[in-house]
């Protein structure tokens, strides 16, 4: 089986004047279709850099990165944009929705850049908003939605082009425990249906929702092991509801 993500000795170096900063050092990592991977590490360990590289927002300074078997180093900037559009879906800690657009228009955005005609765009975006449970909030603007709802819109946007992998950078960081758990429940549902997900977090409890954990320290991959018994978000939510009563 071709891995979705195949990082071969990938490094990322920043040159600040005379100083070199190695954000990532020779990382070898493979993610296969259907996996749910949590990328953990302390602050400055290079987690976000790794995620950006996987998502083709950035290029490695050394090493090779194959996305769905394709060598990304050969791709032009425009081609990388297309890759981000079609193969990758980002979910950010701060949601990153466009404030002047409605939820529907936000979810449509990747389809717009893919050149999909308007009626098709609308339909697909509406489908996805329904999938994440926000069909009744389609025409609301982000400021009219709660944090959890905004993040779900972001997830819908990430999924709208049917990507090869969903990349989430601290998706629950700006959410309260309940909303956070709901978003994690959503991720688990998607993964159960076959979606490939890579999630960056510093929170071990969040990481335990995934099926595989990789650890970074000072830019190196130092740990890579399966999660023996992943936390089921639905159960956690159940307990939260029970505790309230």
């Amino acid at each position, binding site marked *: 089986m071709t891995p979705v993500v195949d990082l071969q000795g990938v490094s990322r170096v920043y040159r600040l004047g005379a100083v070199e900063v190695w954000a990532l050092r020779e990382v070898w990592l493979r993610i296969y279709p259907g996996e749910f991977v949590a990328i953990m590490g302390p602050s400055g360990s290079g987690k976000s850099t790794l995620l950006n590289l996987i998502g083709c927002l950035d290029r490695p300074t050394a090493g090779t990165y194959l996305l769905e078997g394709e060598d990304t180093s050969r791709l032009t900037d425009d081609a990388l944009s297309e890759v981000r559009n079609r193969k990758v879906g980002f979910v950010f800690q701060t949601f*990153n*929705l466009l404030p002047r657009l409605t939820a529907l228009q936000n979810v449509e*955005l990747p389809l717009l850049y893919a050149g999909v005609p308007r009626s098709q765009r609308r339909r697909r975006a509406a489908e996805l908003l329904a999938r994440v449970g926000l069909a009744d909030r389609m025409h609301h603007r982000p400021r009219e939605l709660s944090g959890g709802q905004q993040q779900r819109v972001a997830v819908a946007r990430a999924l709208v082009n049917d990507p090869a992998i969903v990349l989430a950078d601290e998706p629950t960081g700006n959410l309260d425990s309940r909303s956070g758990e709901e978003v994690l429940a959503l991720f688990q549902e998607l993964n159960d249906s076959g979606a490939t997900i890579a999630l960056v977090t510093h929170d071990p409890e969040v990481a335990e929702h995934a099926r595989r954990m990789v650890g970074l320290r000072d830019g190196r991959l130092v740990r890579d092991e399966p999660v023996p018994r992943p936390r089921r978000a639905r159960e956690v939510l159940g307990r939260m509801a029970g505790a309230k009563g």
Partner: protein
Amino acid sequence: MGTGVPKKRFRDFWGGLAVGLGEAFLVALEALRANPLRSVLTTLGVVIGVAAVIALVSVGQAARSRVVGEFANLGPDLLWVLPGKAEQGQQFATQEGRFTLTYSDAQAIQREARAVSGVAPWLQTSIEVAGGGRREVTTVIGTTPEYLQVRALQLELGRFLSEADQQRRKRVVVLGPVLARQLFRTPDLALGGRVVINGRAFEVVGVLQPEGQVLGVDLDDRAYIPFSTAQLLFAVNYASLLFVKAQDTASVLRAKREVERVLRREHGEEDFTVLTQSQFLGALDAILRVLTVALSSIAAISLLVGGIGIMNIMLVSVTERTREIGIRKAVGAKRGDILTQFLMEAVAISLVGGVLGMGVGLAASWAISGRLLNQPFTAVAALPVVVLAFSFSVLVGVVFGVYPAWRAARLDPIEALRYE
């Protein structure tokens, strides 16, 4: 997980491009609507520039039409003989040698120039004229009987100056209709009345029909007395200028040559200028054109300033929306997409400004042409200017929008996403 939405085919490209640009334009208008005050202020420079260019050029054209129209009324077969030699390139005589044209010059031309049908010398002064219990400062002109035919004037009442008046230096006067009304209330009352010019009494023997205005000069507010009387009255022995009428329009140039030949011989030197109507018009046209271009250039500067304003605001806008640009790039916007988006906004601003400026400019042209110049405003004449000004406004949007749009497109997505 699949391969994603299928790529667009090439044959859909151009159709898609048109739709894309149209949509992009609408999106741009939406973005402008988000901050209406800022958008309006930004378009102001373009509005003023376009309005000014349209108004100035239209008014210039109207002025020209009016002048040409007025001149055409005077007759295309008319020649002016002025004292003093005009410099090369100058169409109007200098002030030197003001006293060289005489009555005998007029007679010589009348005798010898075959292509000429009539000559009338002209002596002009501005003086107080009293009559009918009133006084007016007006133009008094000394001329000969030929003047009536040379200028193709019509009499309302009475007669024009006669050869006998000229021979005997009679104190008779023919009034223009406006002066006649100013002094005597009606032309009937003026006829036979008494008028005092420079302390001497004159009898009114005729009143002319109206001629109208030329270049703001009222041709009907004047009095005509015999040339010899005028010379005596004002103690001079020269003519201000000579009016010459050619046999017909076709002989104008031949008449000019003949007049020049006669005068050269009479004077012994070339101390005069003979001007045809077309030369006059040419000179006026040239002046008007230079004026129009100069004024329009100043107006065009306003357009430039407007463009700089657009660039300024777009740069601010790009900075404010850095995060947004990062997000768009993260979901797959190419540099070209971002460039187009922001360029479209700049073009939208300048286009809206152009349309508004057109409205204001046309309204101003209509008002100025109609009211001030008494010239009906022809939209047809204005059309090329409108198209030009409009195209310029779009161009301004593109030229001044490119730099901010390029800056936006070049942003690094990761940096942009971090922007607060």
